[in-house]
């Protein structure tokens, strides 16, 4: 099974979202947000393309699990990953996504990599480093994600504020109000 940075990110937001995404249950792109995201990526740092490369990494975690990640902007001189996001609503999940990338570098023998998490819209940036404890946490998380995805059962609904902005909102909340039956 392949576990990538997106799944790690989603797992920190909502296990159900992670499960749905991994099982190919994606929502139709009715809004412009996806397109917007692409533009953001292309427009935010037009000069970056020269110094920064896109890099794909894999690492074998166990017999059954392969970790993969695709970093859009990696500055090999400064050993820095640049990750841009639209909004900081799920900042913790974004941080774990960055730490996952750093970890992937480390698993490939490239140490001392750091990441900069940027939110161009609100002009925020955070430096991200990976601690010893983070690596342990990530390797536990990978195990958890693995078990989640092996299960045939979709995890329960979160019922949190974040659901309102989730692309699965209508799927999760489309049930009939049974009081009317």
């Amino acid at each position, binding site marked *: 099974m392949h576990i990538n940075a997106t799944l790690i990110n989603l797992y920190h937001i909502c296990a159900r979202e992670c499960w749905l995404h991994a099982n190919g249950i994606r929502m139709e792109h009715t809004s412009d947000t996806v397109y917007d995201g692409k533009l953001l990526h292309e427009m935010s740092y037009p000069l970056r393309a020269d110094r920064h490369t896109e890099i794909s990494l894999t690492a074998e975690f166990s017999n059954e699990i392969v970790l993969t990640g695709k970093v859009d902007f990696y500055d090999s001189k400064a050993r820095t990953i640049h990750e841009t996001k639209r909004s900081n609503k799920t900042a913790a999940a974004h941080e774990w996504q960055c730490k996952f990338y750093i970890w992937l570098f480390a698993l490939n023998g490239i140490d001392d990599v750091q990441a900069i998490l940027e939110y161009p819209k609100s002009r925020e940036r955070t430096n991200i480093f990976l601690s010893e404890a983070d690596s342990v946490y990530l390797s536990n998380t990978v195990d958890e994600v693995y078990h989640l995805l092996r299960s045939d059962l979709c995890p329960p609904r979160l019922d949190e504020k974040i659901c309102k902005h989730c692309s699965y909102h209508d799927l999760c909340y489309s049930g009939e*109000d049974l009081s*009317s039956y």
Partner: protein
Amino acid sequence: MKKSYYLFNPGRMSRKDNTLQFIPVDAAGIEGTPKYIPVESVANLYAFGALDANSSMYNFLGKEQISVHFFDYHEHYTGSFMPKDYLLSGKVLIAQTQHYTHQKKRLLLAQKFVSGATGNMLKNLKYYHNRDKDTSIQIDRIEDLSSQIWETDSIEMLMGIEGNIRITYYSSFDTIINDFEMGIRSKQPPSNEVNALISFINSLCYTLCLDAIYHTQLHPTISFLHQPGFRRYSLALDLAEIFKPILSDRLIFTLLNKKIVTKGDFDIQLNSCLLKESGRKKVVKSWDERLSETIMHRSLKRNVSYKHLVKLECYKLVKHILDMEGYQPFKAWW
């Protein structure tokens, strides 16, 4: 907001960069002024007149996930151009197949479709009953029949009950509709105005459901109530059962009782009756307006269009077949 485009005139459609160009061609082969449609604004196309097009146009439509529904000269639905599936999920496909092959699971879903459809038919009958149209005989009979839905142990038996419910339901149309007689439901060809409207609008409802299914992970050929292959995309037939009473029938009652569509909009031959182009245009316009009307959805807690309701029904089916949440058919509450 994407919308449906209805092509009444014959003509040629082609791709011009990122727009569609439609050149109407009249009976003498004379070309009219071209019309341009930006592709991002197209949800789907309905071709009522002869549509001339080449493969590059269909490749383009396919890439943009736009379907085309075809109707023949007699306004019979003849088929659809469906772009390649783009939201396929192996998980959903396998689960959907299992719900079809497992007899009990299939029957349960089929029963839910029939019970949802029946609930919505009763809603219509009761609505008119409260407005001085005596439909009490039909209401009693259908309530009686509907209690048997859950006692069926085969699809055939269920289909039998469904058939009786539908006959009873249609027998109320002569009471509900002013000035027009429906008599017996006749399809090919429709024998009178009411039958012509039912056939035409039901095809619109079918294509609506087909499009909604296409934009989810459900596979349109694996159905539960209808035998798969009865019509190629038989899941759309299953889904249409739920929505026909609310979307098709209510529209028919309004169109006729409010005299939006009148005798003059029909072309009556010896033993067939079809909508004239004027009538077809009125129907399609009202249908389109109806689909964008919104209602307050009680669990989403926001306004959703009728069109979106069909999509939500697909989501509920996905959840059911993945054992996330038991499917409850949509039942009108107003």
